[in-house]
């Protein structure tokens, strides 16, 4: 362990972590030999073992550093397999860490947890799934951000250049509601088995909620989502990116009752989020004067149906769902990693 100093007063210890520049702005839980050992034991790894690396920064995440940061975030030891899998996703080449971590776009790292571990840990998938009040949601996401800051050197103003950032940068973790799911859960859609546990990471710009209280059929409901996703101000214009849509109870029920599949929804949204080039030129999002051809030349937001990730979470009541627009274009891809307790799993 890396011993720095001694202090007898718990409050002074918390201040010492602030003074060292090791917090995200909130007080941390001061780790102890015992709490770090418990967290490490839950990973099934030795402290020096590597979970992953960010090659462009020569940054290596060891199990010991992950454990220290997770304890600081407030994680219980049994949360560690999720944290380990999330770190593996961060370090996957497809995630291309540097862009989403450092960009002025200031993306949050959204974690979607699936499978038995989500239920075992009590990760909230229901009312207020994105909000406060649930320890695993709050602390697992926070642990990932602390690891990014402290181990991957992604500090605000230095290698985190976010213009505004977004509140999800403190912590953003929720589980999918797999019971009564209109389709197969997200991790199954991405190639894993239903009985697997998994975490999916997506670099997300600020989420926005989509409201529709009247739509009783899929088309008008999904037109609202298409309008939200295809806005002229979207940062994701120069290529194709991913987006995560989280349907809550009432909207999911509309789609389910109509017999729409996940692919039906994805195809509808692909088609209805396209806009003429002229729209983007009028908004100076594309250079040059508007030509007559621009009025009928379509620009698509998504390249493939599967680039629209769909999850099911949130309360049963309320006509709300959410879009989590992915950061960047093809610069980063969401990554799903199987959680293989106790030591994490394979990246897919």
């Amino acid at each position: 362990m890396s011993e720095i100093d001694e202090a007898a007063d718990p409050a002074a210890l918390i201040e010492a972590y602030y003074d060292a520049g090791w917090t995200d702005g909130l007080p941390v839980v001061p780790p102890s030999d015992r709490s770090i050992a418990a967290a490490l034991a839950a990973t099934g790894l030795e402290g020096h073992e590597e979970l992953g690396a960010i090659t462009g920064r020569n940054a290596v995440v060891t199990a010991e550093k992950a454990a220290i940061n997770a304890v600081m975030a407030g994680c219980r030891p049994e949360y560690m397999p999720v944290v380990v899998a999330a770190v593996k996703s961060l370090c996957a080449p497809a995630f291309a860490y540097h862009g989403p971590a450092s960009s002025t776009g200031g993306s949050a790292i959204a974690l979607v947890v699936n499978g038995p571990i989500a239920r075992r840990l009590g990760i909230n998938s229901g009312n207020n799934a994105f909000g406060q009040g649930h320890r695993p949601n709050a602390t697992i996401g926070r642990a990932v951000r602390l690891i990014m800051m402290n181990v991957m050197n992604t500090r605000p103003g230095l290698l985190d250049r976010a213009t505004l950032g977004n509140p999800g940068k403190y912590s953003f973790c929720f589980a999918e509601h797999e019971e009564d799911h209109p389709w197969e859960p997200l991790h199954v859609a991405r190639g894993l088995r239903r009985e697997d546990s998994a975490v999916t990471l997506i670099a997300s710009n600020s989420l926005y909620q989509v409201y529709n209280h009247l739509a009783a059929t899929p088309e008008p409901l999904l037109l609202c989502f298409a309008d939200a996703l295809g806005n002229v101000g979207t940062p994701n214009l120069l290529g194709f990116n991913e987006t995560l849509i989280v349907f809550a109870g009432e909207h999911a029920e509309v789609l389910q009752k109509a017999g729409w599949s996940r692919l039906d929804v994805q195809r509808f949204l692909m088609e209805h989020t396209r806009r003429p080039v002229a729209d983007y030129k009028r908004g100076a999002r594309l250079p040059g004067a508007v030509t007559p051809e621009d009025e009928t030349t379509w620009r698509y937001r998504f390249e493939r149906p599967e680039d629209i990730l769909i999850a099911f979470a949130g309360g049963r009541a309320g006509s709300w769902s959410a879009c989590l627009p992915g950061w960047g274009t093809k610069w980063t891809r969401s990554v799903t990693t199987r959680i293989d307790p106790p030591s994490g799993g394979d990246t897919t």
Partner: protein
Amino acid sequence: MKLFDPTSKPVERAIKLAPRPASPRGLRLGLVENTKFNASPILEKLAERLAQRHQMTVTVRNRKRSASHEVDEAGIKALRAQADLVISGVGD
């Protein structure tokens, strides 16, 4: 009680630097474009000026997969073999 350091320092690795050219005259030029909006015009303008002033010639043009990605191995190999000077930068 004690503090536990949650940070890691970058892993050090030896980097072999290419020998510095004695003169800019006649160098073979590599351009690494990061795919952002104005990257290519800026690089091409620089190359034009360098050709005028120092008789440099563009021998390699590399377009990265994205601004987030590093130059891939094949690209590095080509730059190493075919360029004396490489210009890279963000054009936004």
